[in-house]
């Protein structure tokens, strides 16, 4: 068994989820690392976009902002925020990667406030940024997040970004594009998907050394545990080598 930390594990799982020829909008940090890793392993034709306008750069190093000059390094196109979002709205973009302060059973995310009074929040977070847009418009939303009771909550303080809203057909009824929604939630404990009918979060695979008690005890809502689930394949030596030597040699992300 190779030695790796949870961040490395999450990045490797995320990278594997991206098939060759897919289009992904990523932010900085783990998602960007995952996309770079995918490009250098299983998905050489992965198209990486940044919401501020960068399209298909040859990333020389990890960007520090989704609008910095790395995001257009030898890019195929330097465009606008509107252009990226219109690409998403037109159905061009397969994946987006998001995080958040809170997530609920339907994959809705909160990155706006903690507290119940919107005008006087206990904590003000940055807000949607492009998260609501990407989760509304891209075909599949991927969430990469550490899992604990504070993040996995029964009720969000604020629904910044749509998952399956109230579950069932509520997302489809909302006016959001058809066939879209949360696809995978990748945590340090397991990988989750969503039940086809109720759209509740359910376990897909457990990480090495984890059990279903870890799943339950680290969530404020009940995560469905189906009779059959997988065990997450460990990162391969090759994945870890590329991630550590090529993608993030300075350990900005994987050193967290």
């Amino acid at each position, binding site marked *: 068994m190779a030695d790796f930390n949870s961040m490395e594990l999450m990045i490797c799982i995320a990278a594997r989820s991206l098939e060759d020829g897919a289009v992904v909008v990523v*932010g*900085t*940090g783990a998602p960007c690392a995952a996309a770079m890793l995918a490009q250098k392993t299983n998905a050489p034709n992965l198209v990486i976009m940044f*919401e*501020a*306008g*960068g399209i298909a750069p040859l990333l*020389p*190093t990890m960007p*520090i*902002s*989704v*609008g*910095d*000059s790395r*995001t*257009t390094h030898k890019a195929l196109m*330097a*465009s*606008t*925020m*509107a252009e990226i*979002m219109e690409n*998403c*709205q037109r159905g061009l973009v397969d994946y987006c990667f998001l995080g958040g302060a809170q997530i609920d059973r339907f994959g*809705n995310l909160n990155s*706006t406030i903690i507290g119940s009074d*919107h*005008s*006087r*929040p*206990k*904590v*003000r*977070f*940055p*807000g*949607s*940024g*492009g*998260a*609501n*847009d990407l989760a*509304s*418009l891209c075909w599949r939303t991927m969430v990469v997040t550490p899992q604990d009771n504070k993040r996995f909550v029964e009720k*969000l303080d*604020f*629904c*910044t*970004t*749509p998952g399956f*809203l109230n579950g069932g057909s*509520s*997302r489809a009824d*909302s*006016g*959001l*594009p058809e066939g879209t929604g949360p696809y995978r939630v990748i945590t340090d404990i397991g990988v989750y998907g969503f039940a086809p009918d109720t759209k509740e979060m359910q376990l897909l695979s457990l990480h090495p050394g984890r059990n279903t008690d870890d799943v339950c005890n680290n969530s404020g809502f009940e995560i469905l545990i189906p009779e059959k689930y997988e065990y997450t394949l460990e990162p391969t030596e090759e994945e870890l080598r590329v991630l550590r030597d090529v993608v993030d040699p300075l350990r900005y992300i994987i050193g967290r």
Partner: protein
Amino acid sequence: MTTQFPLKTGKGRLFIQPDAEAGREISRRKDKRLVSKLTTVKDAVNRYIHDGDYLALGGFGSNRISTSLLHEIVRQKRKDLGLAGHTVTHDCQILAAGRCFNRCDIAYVVGLEARGLSRNARSMFEDGSVEVTEWTNASLAWRFKAAAMGLPFLPARVMMGTDTFEYSGSKEILCPFTGKKLLALPALSPDVALIHVHRADIHGNCQIDGIIMADDDIAKASKRVIITTEKIIPVEDIRREPNRTVIPYWCVDAVIEMPFGSYPANMPGEYFSDEDHLKEWLAAEKDPETFKAFLEKNIFGCSDFYEYLQINGGIEKIKLLREKEFLSN
């Protein structure tokens, strides 16, 4: 009339009401002659930015921003400004340092992306000093675009079903052709836009390298536009490559040549962001006294942007950031 739509409306306040006719009058009155608009940062802020104005900031937070103008706004102690927060990061942090604004259309504020959150900016949003309406990066970009297109609204397919919608100023509508639900975004015409570009002529025709973010639409949407530019170029250079003109001169009211004017933010193809200085700023905010001294040193004690640049390393620092931009360090 709007009761015709038995559909939901966000409860956020519209700080700027969409009004296509008013926008048309403003465009009509803009000076279309090719005159020089060269001026200074002090003069431009003094003349074009008033207490209570609603501001749009070009670039994207810590990339290609008009730092010199933002510092001057703080120095001139502008108050009660409105702010379009379509990802404002270090720019928001600067204005928060002066507590210059009291209302904000939020997509992304108080954070500096991967660098962390600004404690001081957060406090303004947490203690009720700022009235907020929630939006998203796309919806703010499209609100500018609606105004730029001369429309009172644009449809979109975001935000529906979320609290972001509930606290926004948008409305649900039905598509007149498909009958399906859509979002309607009201046009946003800021009073003033501050945009930093790579090259401009004295009339205000601008070229930008790399991503444009929303600056083309912001320039067209705004009542007044102040351009700072790394370099003034002759109008003949603009005419040699008309495909490269991103902002046409008639949008622009003031042009200021301001080399390194995006420092400490990134300027694509010129210099990378000064991460050390941004870290220092974030750290200084942790203690009120430290932060006061920090601001005294970096803004209030500086007579202009170049003094600020100088005390943070001057041209030598820029040279290092150039090297970083070109990946040689």
